[in-house]
């Protein structure tokens, strides 16, 4: 039983990864594995929908940074949607709010 479920879907802007559950030291490798299978074309936007993410620690933030590196390596963009308040606080402390575009929900994030 995994504490993290990742649902992948395609939007007009590119792939959307919906993270459900906990993104931490134990589950972060699963996000890495899924990212490796996601194909991104230049100019697309990888959207991480965090509305269902219940927990995120520093390992989880690292996984999000890896997602960002993955997107940028493909000359694509990355956006975070519906970041939970507690994670947003961690991201503010770490300055990560400066390097991710943040959106209130995945609808907004997938608007071309």
């Amino acid at each position, binding site marked *: 039983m995994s504490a993290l479920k990742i649902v992948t879907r395609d939007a007009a802007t590119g792939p959307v990864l919906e993270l459900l559950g906990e993104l931490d030291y134990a589950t972060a490798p699963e996000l890495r594995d899924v990212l490796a299978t996601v194909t991104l074309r230049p100019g697309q936007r990888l959207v991480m929908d965090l509305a269902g993410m219940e927990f995120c620690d520093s390992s989880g933030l690292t996984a999000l940074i890896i997602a960002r590196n993955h997107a940028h390596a493909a000359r694509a963009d990355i956006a975070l949607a519906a970041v939970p308040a507690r994670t947003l606080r961690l991201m503010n*402390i770490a300055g990560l709010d400066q390097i991710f575009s943040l959106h209130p929900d995945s609808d907004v994030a997938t608007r071309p």
Partner: protein
Amino acid sequence: MMCRAGQQSGPYGADDEEAANASFAALLEDGAEELYENAPCGYLSTLLDGTVVKINATLLGWLGLEREEVVGRMRFTDLLTVGGKLYHETHFAPLLRMRGEIGGIALEMKQAGDKRMPVLVSSAVKHGEGGQPLLIRTTVFDARDRRAYEEELLRARKAAEEARRQAEADRARLQQALAVLQRSLLPDTLPAIPGMETAAHYRTASPDRLGGDFYDVFPLGGTRFAFFLGDVCGKGPEAAAVTSLTRYTLRAAALHDPDPVSVLATLNEVLHERYTGGDPRYCTVVFGIVDPDPESGRAAVRIASGGHPPALVLRADGRADFLPTPGGLLVGIMPAASFATAATTLAPGDALLLYTDGLTEARTGEDRTALYGDAALRAFAADHAGEPPGAVMKALADLLDGFGDGLDDDTALLALGVPSRPAPGPATKNTP
């Protein structure tokens, strides 16, 4: 067939039984003396003084002796090895005298060609009609197989013990190596800063695991000292390698240009160049410079933060406030990063407290689901504001103890304060 012809009988009839008994009897009759001589065990009878009066062929065969040289000429103990003889005299014979019989004692007998044969010996005293002891009957069982088995067991046990000893030695060596490495990550002692007091505390969440938190204090020349505290993402040896690189980079960078933002920018460049792509390694760190002024008894503090939780300032009057450093980015994830700066002045009785998020992220409550958090830390700090750094540190160490298994992550703590009363040393004569 032993059945008589013409007689009717079933397969298990009385006649068959009779016939079988007869054949057993014939065998047994054949055996009485034969059995004694060639039994699969040794027999011997001795007088009470041990002189052998009767011995069977099996035992003679084992020992490679002739009957003539044994009977009437040798005692039982003459057949034993030195060790066997000794054991016989000290244990076997006294017990036999006391109990009248003794069974299953392991002894060693001498074989031809200076060989020794492990045996199991049982003896019983034969008494006369008046109850007086007459002689001793002894059976000797070949225990070579059993001895081989025991030796095999012993060898296996020794091998297991050796393996365990080796594993323990390896473990001790590994722990020693870890301890040495851990010391390379953290200073043994903090240098004394004239006119200031410092205290630090490090709590590992797991004793076998190298920590990813770090801190240090070192002189910059003149009256200024540099300090830093941080947290490398991840755990284990990979994180420790980053910690080590981080610590020495910060020290070297500060000697070159101690401006806090410049120091963090150098570290950022080093980490980003070294670790990038699918295995990003970064850290959060607060780097600062403290410049105590002996004239005023105050210490000017300048810090820069890269993604680290805000420092706390504990004032002599009992206040505790965060020293916010918003917007500073994690060190090492971007080729060029911006860092936040802050400054404050510590008056006598004030202290600056740096901590890693192992403290604020400690799980609290009965079900360990709540987090300790910033507000609780600030309130705790306010309770201890005005106390010297050593006392604040002691209180925080006790607080960490109280979290028990709610501590998931390592925690590093560093406090720098100006004593409320003049400290001994350079500050003393200049204190107003």
